[in-house]
């Protein structure tokens, strides 16, 4: 019995879990959405959110100085795609004239949106290559349904609400292992 195309998905394990849930009818849309939030958090929390927040909150008069600080931060995270993406988004937010808490929130929201779009596109393409057309259509529809109900701004607020964002490893997927728990019929 085949495990399904999620096994060969060229993304990190948390995105494979998301793809698996999106492709299997036993997972309710709420559970798929929950996995999306989990996968995004696992990705975005690799970015130096605290440093970006510090730079955004710093007393700098000129926007170019803030951008210089952000560019300097880039060199401290070589090879980390989520970090580079978050910095790109922060630079873009500064370019729009946003600073402080609003700037950090806008940057994080943009990073979440980009991460989601990119991962969903990869999953869709992978399923179109590897799965039956019916199955790939199903994945596409479910991803779309989840994406439409997903609030990236709310997730950004959740990540930014504590003084220090939680470590990436602390983010876990809820396990429903009770005797009277199970998928919908």
């Amino acid at each position, binding site marked *: 019995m*085949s495990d399904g195309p999620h096994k060969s998905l060229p993304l990190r394990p948390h995105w494979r*879990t998301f793809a*698996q*849930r999106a*492709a*299997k*009818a*036993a*997972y309710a849309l709420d559970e798929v959405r929950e996995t999306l939030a989990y996968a995004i958090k696992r990705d975005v929390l690799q970015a130096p959110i605290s440093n970006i927040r510090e730079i955004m909150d710093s007393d700098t008069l000129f926007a170019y100085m803030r951008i210089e600080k952000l560019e300097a931060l880039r060199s401290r995270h070589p090879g980390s795609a989520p970090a580079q993406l978050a910095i790109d988004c922060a630079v873009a937010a500064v370019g729009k004239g946003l600073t402080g808490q609003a700037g950090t929130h806008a940057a994080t929201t943009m990073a979440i949106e980009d991460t989601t779009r990119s991962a969903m596109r990869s999953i869709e393409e992978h399923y179109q290559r590897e799965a039956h057309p019916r199955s790939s259509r199903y994945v596409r529809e479910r991803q779309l349904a989840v994406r439409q109900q997903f609030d990236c701004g709310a997730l950004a607020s959740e990540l930014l609400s504590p003084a220090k964002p939680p470590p990436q490893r602390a983010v876990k997927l809820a*396990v*429903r*292992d*009770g*005797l*009277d*728990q*199970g*998928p*919908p*019929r």
Partner: protein
Amino acid sequence: MTDTSERLSNHEIGERLRLAREGVKLTQSQAAEVIGAARTTIVAIEQGKRRIQMDELQKLATSYQTSANVILRREAVHLDMVPRFRKLDDSKDIDVERATRLLNDLVSAEVELENALGVTRARNYPPERPILPGEVRSQAEQDAQELRDWLGLGSGPIMDIVSILDLQLGIRVYVRPLHGKVSGLFAYDEAAGACILLNANHSHERLTQTGAHELAHVISTRHQPEVLTEGERFASREERYANIFQRNFIAPARVVRQRFAEITAGQSHLTRRHVILIAHAISLSREATVRRLEELKLAREGTWDWFQGNGGITDAQVREVLGDIPRPNISVVLKGMVPPRLALLAREAWKQELYSEGQLARLLHLDRHGIREVLDGAEREEGEADELVKILR
């Protein structure tokens, strides 16, 4: 096999040597090297045109991993099932090879005991149902239901597949510890009949599934040997037939639907508790139960993966729902790896002093402890013989 002449003919010895050589995958040239002769000498010996010398026989027997005694014993039965398995693509593996050899030896041993005691095995095989053109699914479902009706199983669960195969259908079935990836083997021989070897290391539920799978081959593709190994991708029509037959024989759709409706009445979610109760009611493993529910569209696709992704369904949870009920066990596993009928033959042969305990242990590939377990019953029976009513013949 009941030839009265003391001495085996050259032809018979040659044939036995050929089977033994093929059993260890030696070429005629390699065998010729063992005795320091030309290949044509081996050809002549195997064709019965030249009588083998005793020293040559001993050397060859050693390299064939057997003994001169086994080759020369008049009553020994030599079957050639191993080469047939070798034609299968997936039987190149050493563990599969070992299992095919074991099956061959066990069948030979049973036939030899039958010959010694002058009994024959009654074959009660259902009529052969070759796979017809068209959809395999409906044929497999129909054949499985027909066989259940024919066996009078009703809608009850299959508790002991070995007894059904061995005693009801007259199929030679053995349950021995095999490598984990080998689930079962099936072979058909005109003389010996249908023969099945199952892996004793597997759980009761899995053993039942493998037994039913091999039974499907008896029904449909009797003349094709088969090795069922783990992780296979079943593509052929024969394998698809066997899988569908297996599921429908063990858990008929109507019974599963009925149990499902009774147990989950009015519920919006299929919970672990439901799965445990349904699996218990139809005597199937938890995974097989959920997969069967998925197949029958009673559960959504990916339901088993849902449970797996959320911690699975544990033994502790089963105990919580069902309590400490004794697990069902297949009679053979429970009673020492010799099926009921073969155990009776071995006891009888031992009681009549046709075979010693050691000979029987070697024949049946058992250790001393194992053969004692088989023969213990015979001793007890003898003690109580006077009190028993004799079977009229």
